[in-house]
């Protein structure tokens, strides 16, 4: 398993994963479960070292709505690549709750999901790959345009259209006139 953050391979994960119910060490960056965070939020927020929360796919991101300024990492779990709940969670955390820290995809994460993950706001990936940086490059190369505005703040075609080509009547523009372009 390799960790990529903002497109760069990270040799060692600075966050130590703390199992459910286990004691949280006083020092060092930790990644705790939502249950641990909920039970100990006040004391964990006082720590000088970073705290992250691992959110399971059955857990609601709304539970972290008030915590986004206190967390340095939120990890969202993909129990299998077919489980797409965390794409919604990522958008809510980024767009609704205003989380700006590291948003990491963990679990069953591979090349073909990366494009969707980046577009919904993930910037870090624990990826099962021999060459994760190459995978990210491939995923980023696949598409240069998309229709939906989403968590990554990149411009979607629906917005670019109104910028690139202000509202115009296709009938006034031969290149856009359906009747002029029968063979396209």
């Amino acid at each position, binding site marked *: 398993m390799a960790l990529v953050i903002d497109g760069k391979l990270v040799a060692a994960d600075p966050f130590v994963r703390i199992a459910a119910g286990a004691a949280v060490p006083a020092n060092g960056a930790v990644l705790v479960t939502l249950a641990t965070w909920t039970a100990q939020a006040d004391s964990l927020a006082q720590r000088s070292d970073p705290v992250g929360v691992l959110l399971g796919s059955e857990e609601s991101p709304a539970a972290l709505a008030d915590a986004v300024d206190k967390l340095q990492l939120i990890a969202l779990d993909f129990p299998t690549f077919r489980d797409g709940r965390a*794409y919604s969670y990522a958008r809510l955390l980024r767009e609704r709750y205003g989380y700006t820290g590291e948003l990491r995809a963990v679990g069953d994460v591979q090349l073909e999901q990366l494009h969707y993950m980046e577009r919904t706001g993930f910037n870090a990936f624990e990826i099962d790959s021999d060459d994760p940086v190459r995978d990210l490059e491939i995923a980023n190369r696949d*598409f*240069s345009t*998309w*229709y*939906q505005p989403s968590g990554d703040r990149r411009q979607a075609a*629906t917005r670019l259209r109104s910028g690139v080509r202000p509202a115009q009547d296709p009938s006034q523009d031969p290149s*856009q006139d359906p009747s002029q372009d029968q063979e396209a």
Partner: protein
Amino acid sequence: MYRYDEFDRTLVDERVEQFRRQVEARLSGDLDEDRFKPLRLMNGLYLQLHAYMLRVNVPYGCMSSVQLRRLAHIARTYDKGFGHFTTRQNIQYNWIKLEETPDILAELAAVEMNAMQSSGNCVRNITADHYAGCAQDEIQDPRVWCEILRQYSILNPEFSYLPRKFKLAVTGAPRDRAAVAVHDIGLRMHLNDAGEPGFEVIVGGGQGRTPVVGKTIREWIEPEHIVSYVEAILRIYNMYGRRDNMYKARIKILVNALGIDKYRELVEAEWNEIREGVLKIDPAEAERIDAYFQPPAYEHMENLHAELEALRSADDAFDAWMRSNVVAHKVAGYSIVNISLKAPGKIPGDLSAAKMDAVADLADEHSFGELRVSHRQNLVFTDVRQGDLHTLWQQLCELELATPNIGLASDIIACPGLDYCALANARSIPIAQDIGQYFSGSLKLQQVGDLTINVSGCMNACGHHHVGNIGILGVDKRGKEFFQLTLGGSSDEHASLGDRVGPGLPQAEVPAAIERIVDTYLELREADERFLDTYRRVGMDPFRAVVYDDDTTDKEAA
């Protein structure tokens, strides 16, 4: 119709190259079948009994003659010379090779077509009224909203791994020709009290194992809000829909489990967060897209009553075709022509490459170079000059495409069934062929009148049997094929699910049972009652009695 701009074209081209990369990874073994499967499905590729099947989108059923010729070329070059039009207004090819698929998709992209999300657990091809833009009863052409929703749904990063597939249907008319009540989301345009057009939003309808007529989640919404409202529905479904059991994963199960009131509460709360955001439809963008759906250059003409009457009284066959296949147009002097793909004894929805080319030529000659696919697996020329009708009829007769049976008993919907499909329990095509043959005498067909017969080869209900006036469902009992009949289904604006008649019948007995049901209807009907009206009035008993009164009937063991 809509034409791609540089964004649409780039996206589709890039999607083709992405799939080429994925196919190469599959063929080299870098990608295993488990992980490749959802990728190929989201590019329209199924693995069937004998080969791969490729399902190509015909967005809301609209295509050009140029596109149809390309579909013919693909049928000839990459398949066995046929295509099969489906209830999602799409076309399927049944004999596709995996390694050739990227090339096929590139050939489609060159004519602004694609197979994106024609399968998979994502938003599927959006279907619509096949008379959109031309129907007399239409409030507004729904295609502009369909296209906006199409773009919104394509490669949507949040909703490409939904719990299960997701189907939308849209109608701009009070008469529902798009079966919106049996879709995951159905949008039905109507006027509010102030006389403004908007959509009733219906959610959680569907067929399959658990057929459900959808429930109204919102009575009326301004069209500018439909994308955000659809996003709210999808987000709640994506987060709360079941993922532990694929047979319980459709949105209808979630809506039923929560109850429509609770589901509405969740959706409305979500929608209130996003309704004024980036998804609110920019009027300039709606105008840009709407410009593609402006009416063609109609000539100013009067309706041709006398001339057509003369031709009709001179020729019974032309008269029968006019009566069942030709529909009034909103513009005087024009008619809507349905092209039946249900000739007696033929496979419903199939069309050969040669006939596709011929139909494309006729579309150029008679209907501004465009045509539609209907969810009942027929084709439609929406804009035919009435003065051309007799010529067009003769041309269609030569192609065996003038069967006068639209909306009648032999206009049967059938899924591919066990002849092709890996999911099927039974062969639906032979049943459809037998029944079609039985009604091939035009007199009986006309006498019976409006009657929909829908055949599915398994409980996944691709043949829409639940909403056929007569539904036929193939089941497997200890290795033998049986067919269960249902009566009283309908997919129109008064949608209902069929009631099961009783134990299944073997294939050989189905046509005779249908005959007895139809004869019973003819005996019982009052005035000009349709089959559905008679059934709703008299109920199941008289029909059940004639299906099972014969001691020799070889019933499926209960």
